[in-house]
Every structure is written in C-alpha cells, then in structure tokens.
C-alpha cells in the first residue's frame, strides 16, 4: 500500500489568502486532488502544505456573460461542466471532453481548472518511487536520461488532459490571479513543449476561471478519446474538433489532438480542406478524409504513454474522421 506523505492542509477563504499561502515554501494548490494525491503517493511531488481551494469564495460555477462568453469557475467539477445546459449548448466539445474524463466518481471530485493544468504523464514517470529508482530515474524526475527517446535531452511526457484540446478549438483563455492583479492568459500561449513542467504559470499564480468566448454562428464541436477501457483511463489519443457551419456550409474548422507529446497539438489545414463544403454532402466527406490524412502525416505518437505508438498513429485519422463526422452530422 502506498502511503501519503505527511502534509498540512490550509483552508483559505479568499483568493488573496490563497495567493499569500501559495507564495510560501512548498505550497501547492489543491482542488479535486484526483491526480495530485496519486502523484504524492508516488512521491513525484513533495509539498509541505496543500492549499485547499474548496472554501475559497467565487471559484466555482458556470455563468454566461453579456457577450455570450461562458465563464467557468476553476474549481467547477467536471461532472457539472459535462452536464451544464449552457456548456452543452455553447461548447459541445468541452461538455463531451469533461464527460469522458476518468470515472463518474472522479468527475464529481476533479475540477475543470485541475484538468486544464494536469501534469504531463509518461509510462516511466507515473510509477512508484521504488519502480523509478530501480530504472535509474529519468528527465522528468530525479534523473538525466529519457527512456522514451534514447539519448533525448528534452522530456516528452504527454499532455493528457481531455479538456485541453477542446478548449483550444474554442479559443478559450484562463483568468489568472497574481499578487499584482489579474491577467488573462490565452490557452494558445499556456503550454510549452517541456514534459517536466509544460505550463507557463508561476507557482504563486492561481487560475480562477476558464473563459470560453461566444462561438461563431452555426458552431458545432466534438471530442473523442482512445483509451484501453471505456472508463477511468487517461487518453492514449484525444481529438477535439470545431466545425462552424452557418447556413449549412462550413465556414471554418479546427482540429487539436492530445496525448501525443508534451503539449496539445493543432492539426494544420483543417479549414483549408473543409471550408466551403456543405453539410451532408459527398464533398464534405471527401474533405473529412483529407483532414484525417493530414493528421496522420503530421502526428507521430511516441512510446510515452501506454499503448503501441504505431497503433495510436493509425488511430489518429480514424478518430479525426469520427470526430468531424460527429460534429458535422
């Protein structure tokens, strides 16, 4: 049985109190804890204090601002995101992605902010401390070698958050509270290709909300996920798509994949293939197949997460096509 390390739990009531606590040595924010606690058991992190966000005012809930943007509090639970009528209507890909995270219990504990900020995952990292030590450690934790890419100097642990690609197709941003005030961080600039720590956020900054702007007329979206079992597992591949089809004709489209590398990855050229095609036509179907082919060419999964990388690569066009058909259908 793996034990949790000794910890203190601080329970601030306001964002200001939380920020002050997070500025202290060895402090980590704690929301759902569904990924953090297993990582603590594996001794991947060694905080002295967990700063619980459960009692902080104003961090949870879904609202729509006057401009039609969804504003989702960072600690809103994934179950609520998946089931919320405004999220389902305005951002269907996000609702689907939130509903495909882990299991019913985990979705009632885990939060949207936590999934957006999920740590990267690798078959050589998400293991017990004993297991990792036996292998000689690696770039992400305590070591200097990569077991995924022999000779590799850069950690390629995989971004494994289901909601990340969906939010990227939706042009979402994060509202981040800092000691100096609040700033808005577009998700496009959040991630960096470094599996050790792939987010451009400082430890003393706190994501308070996720903002999804109003989408174009005729917005459609979908998220599909490849995983070993139809529950609990992290993605071996996740595909989010956006298809804007005002008047029944595609105006613009976007495809973003996750779980291949340290950052979510946009498949380029989706709009070039799909724009101008009418829904329900053979031309659109041919364009969907062409986007799948582009995705296959652009995506090269690494053996960083479980699942044979060749199989995962062959599944890229399959899931891209299925997701586009689901959105356009």
């Amino acid at each position, binding site marked *: *049985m793996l034990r949790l390390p000794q*910890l203190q*739990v601080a329970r601030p009531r306001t964002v200001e109190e939380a920020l002050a606590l997070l500025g202290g040595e060895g402090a980590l924010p704690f929301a759902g804890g569904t990924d953090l606690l*297993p990582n603590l*058991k594996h001794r991947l992190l060694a905080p002295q204090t967990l700063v619980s966000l459960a009692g902080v005012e104003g961090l949870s809930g879904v609202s729509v601002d006057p401009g039609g943007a969804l504003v989702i509090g960072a600690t809103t639970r994934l179950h609520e995101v998946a089931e919320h009528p405004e999220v389902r209507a305005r951002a269907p890909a996000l609702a689907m992605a939130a509903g495909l995270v882990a299991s019913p219990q*985990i979705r*009632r*504990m885990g939060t949207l902010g936590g999934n957006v900020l999920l740590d990267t995952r690798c078959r050589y990292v998400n293991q017990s401390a004993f297991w990792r030590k036996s292998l000689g450690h690696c770039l992400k934790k305590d070591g200097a070698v990569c077991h995924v890419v022999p000779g590799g100097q850069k950690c390629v642990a995989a971004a494994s958050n289901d909601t990340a690609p969906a939010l990227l197709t939706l042009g979402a941003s994060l509202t981040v509270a800092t000691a100096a005030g609040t700033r808005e961080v577009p998700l496009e600039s959040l991630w960096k290709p470094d599996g050790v720590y792939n987010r451009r956020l400082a430890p003393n900054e706190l994501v308070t909300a996720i903002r999804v702007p109003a989408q174009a007329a005729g917005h459609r979206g979908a998220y599909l996920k490849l995983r070993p079992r*139809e529950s609990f597992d992290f993605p071996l591949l996740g595909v989010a798509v956006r298809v804007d089809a005002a008047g029944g004709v595609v105006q613009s489209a976007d495809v973003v994949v996750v779980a291949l590398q340290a950052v979510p990855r946009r498949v380029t050229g989706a709009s070039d293939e799909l724009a101008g095609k009418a829904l329900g036509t053979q031309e659109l179907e041919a364009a969907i197949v062409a986007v799948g082919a582009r995705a296959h060419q652009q995506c090269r999964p690494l053996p960083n997460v479980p699942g044979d990388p060749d199989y995962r690569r062959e599944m890229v066009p399959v899931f891209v096509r299925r997701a586009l058909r689901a959105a356009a259908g």
Partner: protein
Amino acid sequence: MIDLELTVNGELARVRVEPGARLLDVLRGPLGLPGTKEGCGNGECGACTVLVAGRPVCACLTPAAEVEGLEVLTVEGLVGPGGDLSAVQRAFVEGGGVQCGFCTPGMVMSVHALLERNPDPTPEDVREALTGNLCRCTGYAQIVESALLAARKRREAREGGDRA
C-alpha cells in the same frame, strides 16, 4: 493533529486526525466503519465510494479536512433503524450481485446515488453509473440486474406508500 467535525450517516462526528488523513482513514479508523473498502487507493476501482454532500466520490482520494462540515453517507448508513437492509442492499443479495463482496459497498453506494437522482434508470444508465466501480468476480451482469431490481422495488414501495 487537527480536529474535524463532520456528519457521517446522519450523526455528528468529532475526530482528531493527522492533517493529511484521508476520509477513508477516518471512516475505517476512529469512526469504526469498515464497510468502506480500500482497493487500489488510486481512484480507479471505486471500492471506497461514499457519498459526500450527495455526490459519489472516492474516499481514498479525499482528504478528511476537505469534508469538514459536510454530510457523508457510507454503506452502513443505508441500513434502517431496525437493522433492515435498504432496497439496494436487499436487491444485491436477492439478485446475486455479490460474490466475494469486496467491491459491493462501493457498487451499492454508486447504485444508491444513481437511484436518488434517477429512480427509473435504463440498463445503460446503470452501466454508465457503474463505470467507476471494478468487480473481479461477477462479470457485472448480476450487478446490473440487481441495480434494476432495486430500482423496481423502490418504485413499488413508493407507489404502495402513496396508496396507503
């Protein structure tokens, strides 16, 4: 050590625990409620499922400090005042939804949570509600049947109660 107050199965409980203690440790330790089981300790198997403020969650990944002031319902709390099993518990016995029994408390709590929000679930609703609970014995068929049996018994009891 920290002092916590929480409501477990309708009774106010005061406990003094390590700051990092989990809800599961509090239930099985100082509160003497061993019905909730620890399987994987990772949130994967659902054997530790309890209801916190009505939500089915994994007690193994819930710090006890996080449930201060909240209502917790465990499998022991389903039993009536005279020691009668709840409709869900009886259905698991009658429907053969129990084999070794280790996953059963978690299964029962997931089914209880489902029936509280959806009294008339389809077999697909039941399977979806149980996707966070692993069983290594039964193959799940009789667990799903037990859940549907429980739903029927609860509806019959309610309709009977309305007539009476």
